[in-house]
């Protein structure tokens, strides 16, 4: 920890880096200066508030407060994943179930195996990592599913016309959508250590932890993300595909883009 020297004054000086981005944006007439300023201000305010809340939660070391934080993270992630459903009915509810189950199973396994302890400074960050990862996976699943139903509606109609049930008619799309949710995690695993030193591992090394120990944590995080995205993608896809049909098992053309 002693190596960490980010004080308020160094942070203020670090603002030079934001100015570089603003200068490039202005020079190249990208018209993104407003977005950059809003983004930076939001990040500072949000992270400051979260920092103080985390400090309070960790200091309180209360099970119920930790659980409340868990619930807030899961609901927030579900809300954002639901928005990415882009018109799919009940997208929020499906995301909530998928993220809750994915996070509980993954986190529960980590606690049960003794990889992490049920204390706020471990539960809260791990919940955030897992939930945000599932949120991104579900967003990809929904996007792929909607596009595939649109692109392949003729083939689905033909399968229905031959007497196929909606699950059989949608099987290829469900499979591909689950895969699309998991693919970024699988791709990033392949290049771990070769291209990127992931956030958690880098954070531990910066904080002065032995890199070999940091790697062990990263391997565990990799397992965790793989499990959580597969659970989240699986649940959300198997719930969402039914929304593309009505009660007469007819393709719901209103949902096709």
């Amino acid at each position, binding site marked *: 920890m002693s190596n960490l020297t980010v004080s308020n004054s160094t942070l203020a000086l670090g603002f030079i880096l934001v100015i570089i981005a603003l200068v490039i944006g202005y020079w190249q007439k990208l018209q993104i200066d407003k977005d950059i300023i809003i983004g930076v201000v939001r990040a500072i305010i949000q992270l400051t508030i979260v920092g103080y809340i985390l400090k309070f939660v960790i200091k309180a070391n209360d099970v119920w407060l930790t659980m409340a934080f868990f619930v807030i993270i899961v609901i927030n992630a579900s809300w954002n994943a639901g928005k990415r459903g882009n018109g799919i009915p009940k997208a929020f509810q499906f995301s909530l179930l998928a993220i809750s189950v994915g996070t509980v199973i993954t986190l529960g396994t980590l606690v049960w195996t003794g990889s992490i302890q049920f204390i706020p400074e471990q539960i809260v960050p791990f919940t955030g990592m897992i939930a945000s990862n599932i949120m991104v996976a579900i967003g990809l699943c929904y996007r792929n599913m909607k596009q595939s139903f649109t692109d392949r509606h003729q083939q689905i109609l*033909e*399968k*229905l*016309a031959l007497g196929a*049930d909606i699950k059989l008619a949608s099987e290829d799309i469900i499979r591909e959508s689950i895969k699309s949710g998991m693919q970024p995690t699988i791709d990033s695993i392949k290049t771990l250590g070769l291209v990127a030193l992931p956030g958690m591992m880098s954070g531990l090394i910066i904080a002065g932890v032995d890199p070999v120990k940091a790697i062990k944590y990263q391997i565990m995080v990799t397992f965790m993300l793989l499990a959580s995205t597969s659970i989240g993608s699986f649940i959300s896809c198997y719930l969402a595909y039914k929304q593309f049909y009505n009660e*007469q098992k007819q393709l719901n053309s209103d949902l096709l883009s």
Partner: protein
Amino acid sequence: MKDNSMSSISDVEAFKNNYGVNDLDNIFELTNLSYQVGEKKILKNISLNIEQGKYITVVGPSGSGKSTLMRILASMISATSGEALFNGKKISSYEPTEYRRRVSYAFQQPTLFGKTIKDNLEFPYIVRGKEFDKDQVVKFLNYVNLDESYINKSVNDVSGGEKQRIALLRNLIFPPEVLITDEVTTGLDTENKEIVHSILNRFNQDDGLTILRVTHDDSEIEQAMDKITIKNGEVV
């Protein structure tokens, strides 16, 4: 054809027993059937009866509502008002997948599923949870002038006419009670058209299959025994 008739009759009988329906003269009875999208009325108060075992040709200009009517009868879409009865019961009262196995719809430009022809001819078996019967499939391939070698062919290695014939077999391997064909001969050469006509005639005459054929083809319209003409969403 006879072997298939036996298996299909038991299939049809099971369906009828399941829903408690009896043989009626009219397989379809439509009363004041309408379909509209927003403010646009595509079908307007259509009332007509379709007799069992008939081979009916449905004609009319493009956009007149022929395909919409056929899709309602195939349970691919639902009428916005009016009543459509199949074997004396509302179409919506049947379990949709079971109904579509009895009233099968063949598309104008079908897509072939999967990678091989087998993926397509196996599909009706998968739908019914049955084992793929190669002998039966070869017999059906022969009906449309194709042989056993086609089973393992890639879907990309068949011509447009062959594709349409294979797609039609997907509808017929387990013969339905009604087959609706929506311009299935459009774009086919004379030889392919004749093959399609031949198999449809055989099923209609030998098995009593009711056929509703939508067509713009002049020769098909000329040869048609029974016709329904639709204009501006109405039967004329």
